[in-house]
């Protein structure tokens, strides 16, 4: 664990000069049966920044984020072409195991989805499936992850209680903690606040700001204000294409594409 922290702090110094991409996406196409859901997607996702993906319903933003950890393959009729390079490796390479990818690229889902287990076991699940049995290490990972997800103080006295006893917002932060427990490199968030009330949403947004110091974050949101508030770069998806991808401030103040402007000013979508 210490080693990881050191590596991260070293990288932090480097990153101020140049932004290294964690993902390079090249000519990614995806079909659900006959339905061409993603068309020639091509862009880079920078390290230790928040990349927001916005767009109207059905534009392929959720599909896209799920290609990054290959969760999209759980739909049986999916076909893909093109490549996604994650830190110099093509994730579609048959030699690159999907389990290995997902230990590096964690995911937080739209609806809070804790396991029907205790709070402790939820967070310890990731380390356990990766073979960590030492109780002391697990205890530390659980505490660190729950602190990292800003929920430690709320749950520290009830770690053995069932996670379903938590409120929706707490459950979602628990899911974020569960994701942090595998010490990922990238965190994918698929509309993580769409099922939450405004106060819980605010907490998660603050948390994202905190997390980007250590993790690269990709967040899908249907809430443009949220994208504007928390992201560094924003991609606007429409009908399976990337219409515009640039700095968040530029995209919202001075969009170069007419369709982006129409969307962010609320003319459609």
């Amino acid at each position: 664990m210490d080693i990881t922290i050191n590596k991260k702090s070293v990288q932090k110094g480097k990153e101020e000069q140049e932004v290294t991409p964690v993902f390079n996406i090249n000519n990614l196409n995806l079909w659900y049966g006959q339905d061409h859901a993603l068309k020639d997607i091509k862009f880079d996702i920078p390290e230790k920044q928040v990349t927001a993906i916005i767009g109207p319903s059905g534009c392929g933003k959720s599909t896209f984020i799920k290609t990054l950890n290959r969760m999209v393959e759980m739909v049986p009729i999916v076909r893909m072409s093109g490549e996604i390079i994650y830190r110099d490796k093509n994730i579609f390479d048959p030699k690159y195991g999907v389990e290995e990818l997902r230990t590096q690229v964690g995911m937080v889902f739209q609806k809070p989805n804790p396991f029907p287990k205790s709070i402790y076991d939820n967070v310890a699940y990731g380390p356990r499936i990766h073979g960590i049995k030492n109780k002391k290490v697990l205890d530390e990972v659980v505490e660190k992850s729950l602190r990292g997800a800003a929920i430690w103080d709320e749950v520290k006295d009830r770690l053995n209680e069932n996670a379903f006893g938590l409120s929706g917002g707490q459950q979602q932060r628990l899911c974020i903690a569960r994701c942090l427990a595998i010490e990922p490199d990238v965190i994918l968030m698929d509309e993580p606040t769409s099922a939450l009330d405004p106060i819980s949403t605010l907490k998660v947004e603050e948390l994202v700001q905190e997390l980007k110091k250590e993790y690269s974050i990709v967040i899908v949101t249907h809430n443009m204000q949220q994208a504007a508030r928390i992201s560094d770069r924003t991609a606007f998806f429409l009908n399976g294409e990337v219409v515009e991808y640039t700095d968040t401030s530029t995209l919202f103040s001075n969009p170069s594409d007419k369709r982006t402007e129409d969307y962010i000013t609320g003319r459609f979508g």
Partner: protein
Amino acid sequence: MALINKESVKKKMGSRIAANNFAKFLFILATSFSLLVLGVLLFRILDEGLPYLSLDFITSFASRLPERAGIWAALVGTIWIMTVTAPVSFILGVGTAIYLEEYAKKNAFTKFVQINIANLAGVPSIVFGLLGLTIFVRLAGLGSSVLAGGLTMSLLILPVIVVASQEAIRTVPKEIREASFGMGATKWQTIRRIVFPAALPGILTGTILALSRAVGETAPLLVVGALAYVAFVPENLLSSFTVLPIQLYNWTSRPQEDFHMLAASGIIILMIILLIMNSIAVYIRNKFHKRF
């Protein structure tokens, strides 16, 4: 311009409410009828059986003298059969259910297998008895033994366990599987640590209910060759045996009135066993029931 005529609505009101009350009355009647039948049955059995019920009755072997006859051999035989049936049917049934739900491709062949399993659950039990007779007793040469009987019973309840387990596995929400896969868990880890524990209450409930069906079954074991008169308890898996329902059937078919009373006492014992098994099923369902 109102499209709805308030007058006619008012006129209809009375008959709607009358129909509502009539429906309620009908359902109460249906329930009371079944309760009444059950009550009469229970009363008759308790009335006839209680006088003969004693510790001696439980611990004695069958006898041609009613006052000395007991159900010890049948009781132990039932327990033996269950010790074979429960693990065999649980392991095979749950294994099949996991394969069908988690691994099998959803194609025409899987569908065909599914339909056939569901149909098997409705096949008369005597057919399973004939199957057991052919395969276990004759082909495998097990004879009319506890093992052959237990395996035949496993076949009988296997479809029920498979279907119940599949249902239980299907109720585990997709979201928590995704959460597990999303953390780099393998399929087996996801099944073992997430899907199976979440589905276990449903699986156990189904299994226990299926087993309690097996406890009351007579036909397949008669065909397999369970004995009607046994004055010993099975010593190993290859011993011959009898079970409670067969013993009861044997007693009720005798002319002497006293044996009918004995049968009633045996039914009380059988019902107590079933009641205990069903209570365990209900307990498990309530205790481990998880809301998602």
